[in-house]
């Protein structure tokens, strides 16, 4: 086992463990903080894959913005942040069934995929991932359309949020 594999396994366990704590923790703030650590684990995974840009963006966007807003929203909504009720509702068997089905489906799908046993080709020296990513995002041959659609969607959400906040006061 190489050092990289050990680090990957530790990261994966950390991420999954944090994810488990997010859904089982009874204190909402603790759940949000566990979410932060799960997202951080994902960032580490990106870094292990030599995707430094994605790793940093993961921290900036998910921890710096989204998780902080989660915590903000949680703090603003309730006085007592401890949830006393049962953690399962009557649909738990349906959720369990669905997740088992998804797992089985993925398992069989990945059985037929040879990507797991292949070793990734070495990244050539002087390969600038950010320039490649930037070119791909605005190149008509690649992802310019999804990129622009996502931007328009975000602007629409922004305008909607401003409208709700500013013009709906009675």
């Amino acid at each position: 086992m190489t050092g990289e594999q050990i680090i990957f396994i530790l990261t994966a366990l950390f991420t999954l463990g944090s994810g488990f704590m997010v859904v089982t923790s009874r204190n909402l703030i603790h759940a949000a903080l566990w979410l932060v650590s799960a997202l951080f684990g994902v960032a580490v995974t990106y870094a292990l894959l030599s995707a430094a840009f994605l790793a940093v963006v993961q921290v900036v966007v998910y921890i710096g913005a989204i998780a902080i807003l989660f915590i903000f929203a949680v703090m603003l909504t309730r006085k007592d942040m401890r949830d006393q009720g049962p953690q399962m509702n009557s649909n738990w068997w349906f959720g369990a069934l669905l997740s088992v089905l998804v797992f089985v489906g993925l398992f069989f799908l990945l059985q037929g995929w040879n990507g797991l046993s292949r070793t990734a080709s070495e990244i050539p020296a002087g390969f600038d991932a950010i320039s490649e990513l930037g070119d791909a995002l605005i190149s008509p041959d690649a992802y310019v359309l999804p990129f622009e659609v996502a931007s328009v969607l975000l602007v629409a959400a922004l305008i909607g949020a401003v409208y709700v906040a500013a013009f709906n006061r009675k």
Partner: protein
Amino acid sequence: MGILTGWGMPEIAAQILIGFLGIFVLVALLMVLDIFLVWVERKVVARFQDRIGPNRLGPWGLIQPFADIIKLIIKEDTTPGGADKVVYNIAPMLSMMSVLILWAVVPLAPRIIGVEDLNIGALYIIAAGAIGTLSIIMAGWSSNNKFALIGAFRQVAVMVSFEIPMLTMLLIPTIFAESMGLNAIIEAQDIWFVWLAPVAAVIFLIAAIAELGRAPFDMAEGESELVAGFNTEYSGMKFGMFYAGELLHAFTFGGFMAILFFGGYRFFGLEQVSAFLAIAIIVFKAFIGYWIIMWVKYTLLRIRIDHMLGFNWKFLTPLAFVLLMVTALMNALLAGYRDGSSTMWIYVLGMFLSNVAVGWIALEVARAYSRRERQKVEGAKKVATT
């Protein structure tokens, strides 16, 4: 490394050991520097307030910070009742960590970089800031204290908002250097970027001060209304971690000012002479940046929170966006002049003038707006008759 493998250590273990040693030495040096920053800060604030400052212990009071540390360590370590103990104890560590990890990307000399020459250095600064934000909200919430919580709310609101102009301004050196790596940004500064984008440097400084939570943006502390803000309940060395973290953070942002706009370790070719000279140059420049941040802190009054956020969202953010667009456009238009050293001055002058023009127009717009607002409140201005 040759020595360690010669002793029969496997190569990978030697590599890991050397990596850890490097980090350990860097962090140790930073912490020692931090001790003296306490002294520097106290001396400088004393001079601004027409006092002498610490002068009893040792020459010029130099031993004072060690006395402070002993005091902080032997102080009773209190935990408020109803506090969330784990979160409460993690928060100061995260706060210090968010500052220390910044140094991973700081290029100290042409070939000496904290950890690695990441080609996303500029973005990494913002990511580290995100962890700082997290530490503050954790501290404020886990203290089980209303003052701490309100202080944390304010500080996080400020940090989240001022991140936007700061990130935008980080893109301007990126445009000039065509790379986000801090080392590449320094290498590209044959002409300091502050001459190409002076307004960007000022906006970055303002956003950095807000990010640091120092006056005039220290609403989080607001001692006249919030006791001490998010760190109200912390005592002893846990408070010390927040305090030391803040000082080192200010110094670090002085360093980033130097790296992004003032040529980093470059000073008329002196950096090529010796790596130590290069480190001395960047530390000196960082201290100048730190001094400017202190100068602002001890001169200006605290701004009200709604004014501060209004200033960011209605003035600084639009200005930063317009400035980014104008800079990118001018950079593309004048790119032809940039290569030849004989026509370089056209490029520099064009960039400088366009930058100043954008800043000036923004100030005029802001002035016209404030005049209108004032008229609404006070009625039409009476013309003075003399």
